[in-house]
């Protein structure tokens, strides 16, 4: 699903440049549940941004579902993001003046779906995360865990190939974190490829593969026995 070869990225900070990714090789198959770990500054978020087409690599190749991602125009990047990827953020990033259903329906709007279909799909995915009753509530009326579940529903709504989650449990307490992970595991069980960036070991242990990053290089890449979140919930 994702093939990354010799990926380099550096940021210019005034006169000196900061080499963030120093040759990343990563191959992720369909249906995998991967966590990328590392301390802050290890380059894990940069890697996720490049995979998410929010940022562009300098050197190396990145192929997503057979499509080489290189020199994309902003317009093309927007179309690919919409088609291939679902995003989940640490701070949820819901639009605060839209209710849960409208938030979930937003990527579908950019896909050009009819209003009726958007509503149907949005309700379906809200149901899936157990928030059908909260469809008409604004984000400010939801708890942190509920907000993240709305965000997950939104990420799923566009039926992406890959789900990208940047510290999805970073703003949540342990209990809620496990609930969110349980959802992600369920989605993965259905065959969806998921990539999670985290620095929490217990969260990483709930995925199937852990990739450790340090100073812009992969220092460890191992498949692990998945800890089911359901046992903590």
């Amino acid at each position, binding site marked *: 699903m994702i093939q990354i070869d010799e990926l380099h990225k550096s940021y210019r900070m005034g006169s000196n440049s900061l080499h963030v990714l120093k040759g990343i090789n990563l191959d992720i198959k369909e249906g995998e549940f991967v966590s990328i770990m590392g301390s802050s500054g290890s380059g894990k978020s940069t890697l996720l941004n490049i995979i998410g087409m929010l940022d562009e690599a300098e050197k190396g190749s990145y192929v997503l579902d057979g499509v080489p991602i290189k020199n994309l125009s902003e317009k093309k990047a927007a179309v690919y993001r*919409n088609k291939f990827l679902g995003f989940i953020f640490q701070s949820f990033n819901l639009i605060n003046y839209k209710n849960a259903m409208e938030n979930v329906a937003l990527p579908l709007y950019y896909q050009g779906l009819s*209003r009726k279909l958007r509503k149907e799909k949005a309700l379906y995915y809200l149901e899936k995360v157990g928030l059908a009753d909260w469809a008409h509530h604004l984000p400010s009326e939801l708890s942190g865990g509920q907000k993240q579940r709305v965000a997950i529903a939104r990420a799923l709504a566009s039926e992406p190939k890959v789900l990208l989650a940047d510290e999805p449990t970073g703003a949540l307490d342990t209990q809620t974190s496990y609930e969110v992970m349980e959802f992600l595991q369920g989605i993965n069980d259905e065959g969806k490829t998921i990539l999670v960036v985290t620095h929490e070991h217990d969260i990483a242990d709930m995925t199937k593969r852990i990739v450790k990053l340090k100073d812009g290089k992969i220092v460890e890449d191992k498949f692990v026995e998945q800890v089911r979140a359901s046992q903590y919930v």
Partner: protein
Amino acid sequence: MFDLDRWLEIFQTINKNKLRTLLAGFTVTLGILIFTVLFGMGNGLKNTFYTFFQDDAQNTIFIYPGFATKPFKGFKENRRIEFKNEDLALLEEKFGDRIEFTTARISKGTTVKYKSEYGNYTVRAVHPEHQYLEKTIIDRGRFINENDIEKDTRVATIGRLVEKDLFGNENAVGKYFTLNKIVYRVVGVFSDEGGDREERNIYTPVSTTQLIYKNTDKIDQINLSYDMAIGANGARRLSRDIKKVLKDKHNIAPSDRNGIYVESVIEDLEQNLQLANVLQIIVFWIGLGTLFAGVIGISNIMVYIVKERTKELGIRKALGAKPSTVIGMILQETMVITMIFGYIGLLIGNFVLNSMGNKLEDWFITNPNVSQGTIIFATVILILSGLIAGYIPARRAARVKPIVALRDE
């Protein structure tokens, strides 16, 4: 091009952010309001000028005697110049081919009495052709005619309001009344588009008046109308020629500006309309400037709004919004706000103008209004304003990088 979803999206953002929308729109409302009111008042001013000149035929020339202020050919300065019948005859003889109608006029304030009713009115002793020069409309009876002039008959054609004042509900035609204690017979009643003042005048034959008042042949002024075929330039030349002939006859220095006055309605009208046009152009630019200030205001607020919505725009982009979609959204939103608030300004402005009505007539503003053309023009200006106001913020919005916007801080 109609996209219901886009509109719903825009109305949702506007609805959810009422205060800032209100703030953004206020300046535009104010701009258009000031524009409409000023422009309408400019039109009102023009209307007033038009009514001034509606009174008389547009090809009329008025000729008055004045004082000779320079010595000439042995004549002293500060001579009073007076017109006589022969002056009128001279003009008719010299310019007969260019002149349409002529009349002498002697105006006098006179006490007018009918039975127990009396009042003071201006009596104008004139020739029959005065009717066409003054555009007098005969309601009943007739105007002074040639027969009256020849026989010095004591007849009068009175204004509608003179009849109303003195005769009440009676029909004045055929009745006798007195002008300075001399009995006249009313032969006609007239009305005039020049307004109430004109309808309080009384016309008598010029010869009768000359006979009664000391048997002179003096006249106060000469009015004439030229043949329209000679055009505006021909009219100007005629004015000059008349002045020259009369100055010659009365021994006035050619350089003396005060001996003879020749006024041409069309020239006065042109001058006044020019003034009104200049005023309106000034007013137009002031209005446009105000509107532009409004546009800058809305643009500023939209830039701020885009900054405030950076995160939201970043989310939208991460979820698949194309730059063109974002530009379209911000541009359309700005235009909608500009249009809505602009039209509010237009409506208020129209309301203000309508409720003003003719209350400002004392300040030379009659029936201030804006024409349909101006409203269409204002609409085009509004659309353009929206585009201008939205352009910079929309471009900024399109440049929002989702990665920057979504960075957790």
